[in-house]
């Protein structure tokens, strides 16, 4: 338990202070693509300098350390309650040490718990598999600015001329990009879910953010759509921070789940450039680090 807590604390520290490589690589390409001596180039250069500095100082990349989302995948019979207890301790400790900002507020009284602990925070998603060898723990820190520009469409949507087909989904996703401009600290990454009910659709759209930016969607149709969305968004001229420029999106990841005949949701979760996602594989008891992910 003590080993598990310490390992989770290190996972939180890394997630808050060090960007994942796959995102860093795309940001470097983005900087090369922008015209020199423009505000877009200035924004991306500042972003790069910030990433370097945060890593060097072991301090949060952005002061909004966001919602704390744990995704835990382990063997059948794993003890979820013990994991949750250790994770809560690690979160409180990380908050005390300044890896996390005090970010859990009572929605009625406005009082900040000061520890990041409270009803609904942090968030846990558990899955199991019969053949899982160790405990795969992934963590996403998702800031409030970008969370606020997430949006859910119910198709058909006559405002944007979107029908219940992939073309309609494309319209919805691109509308989300247009509406998010200047907010949510772009260039960003979209996690999208087609289908589900209102709650599962949003949850699944966030899970898409666990995918690396350079992976491929197993569905060729969706893979093509993901690439096309990024290419099209980057022709809109919105640019980093909405200053204008060539880099509006760094990636788009789309998943599908079944829906009811009566419903057709397209849910878009927007992740800011400060894409904090890290993972670790632990021994089944959580005490030993097997390897780091991302």
């Amino acid at each position: 338990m003590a080993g598990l807590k310490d390992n989770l604390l290190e996972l939180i520290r890394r997630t808050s202070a060090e960007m994942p490589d796959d995102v860093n690589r795309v940001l470097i390409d983005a900087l090369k693509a922008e015209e020199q001596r423009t505000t877009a180039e200035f924004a991306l250069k500042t972003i790069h300098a910030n990433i370097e500095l945060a890593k060097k100082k072991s301090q949060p990349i952005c002061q909004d350390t966001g919602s704390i989302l744990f995704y835990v995948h382990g063997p059948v019979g794993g003890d979820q309650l013990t994991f949750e207890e250790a994770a809560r301790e690690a979160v409180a400790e990380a908050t005390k040490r300044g890896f996390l900002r005090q970010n859990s507020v009572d929605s009625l009284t406005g009082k900040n718990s000061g520890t990041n602990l409270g009803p609904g925070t942090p968030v846990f998603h558990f899955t199991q598999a019969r053949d899982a060898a160790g405990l795969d723990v992934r963590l996403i820190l998702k800031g409030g600015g970008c969370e606020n520009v997430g949006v859910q469409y119910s198709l058909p949507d006559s405002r944007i001329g979107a029908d219940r087909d992939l073309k309609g989904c494309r319209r919805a996703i691109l509308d989300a990009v247009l509406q998010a401009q200047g907010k949510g600290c772009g260039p960003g990454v979209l996690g999208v879910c087609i289908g589900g009910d209102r709650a599962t659709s949003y949850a699944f759209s966030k899970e898409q953010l666990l995918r690396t930016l350079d992976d491929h969607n197993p569905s060729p149709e969706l893979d093509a759509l993901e690439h096309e969305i990024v290419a099209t968004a980057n022709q809109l001229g919105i640019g980093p921070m909405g200053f204008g420029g060539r880099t509006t999106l760094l990636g788009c990841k789309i998943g599908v789940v079944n829906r009811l005949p009566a419903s057709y949701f397209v849910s878009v979760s927007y992740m800011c450039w400060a894409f904090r996602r890290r993972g670790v594989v632990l021994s089944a008891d959580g005490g030993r680090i097997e390897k780091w992910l991302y």
Partner: protein
Amino acid sequence: MMLMELQTPISEDVIRSLHVGDLVEITGIVHTGRDAVHKFLHDGGSLPVDMRGGVLYHCGPVMVKEDGQWVCKAAGPTTSIREEPYQAEVIQKLGLRVVIGKGGMGDKTSAGCKEFGCVYLHAVGGAAQVLAECIKKVRGVSMLEEFGSPEAVWELEVEKFPCVVTMDSHGGSLHKEVLALSKEALAKLL
């Protein structure tokens, strides 16, 4: 894109010479102020600091006390549009020349900038560490008891604090321009 070095206090002439898209670096004194301060001023309150010719920064910094001295650990901009109902009035009341934030503001603030000779500067959102490095000293704080640390008015000494002019004192707004152009571009690509 032009790079302008601004030294506080800033004159109206200097502000009027700035245009949307210019890059500026501020050296001197900056005060933070966000939701609570704007509402407080709107309700008739007054602050124990003189900000004439000065800079208001929409920011809730992370401050810690080290050896009896406040030190700034992170200081990125917060979303400005929440202050839209109050901003023009606050610009006039405090005699501000610069407002810094992120995400841009609306028509009312734009009109206020034009009338009173003020600009809106956009700092790079999320760049908490780079911006904190530009803060050389925390000179003081007011309203700490009343509003709590993130909402208090912190007086910061900054050096070459980098921003982009996204709303100037001539009615120009980069946010409006980019929105119109991107809407047009998307219509063609749909």
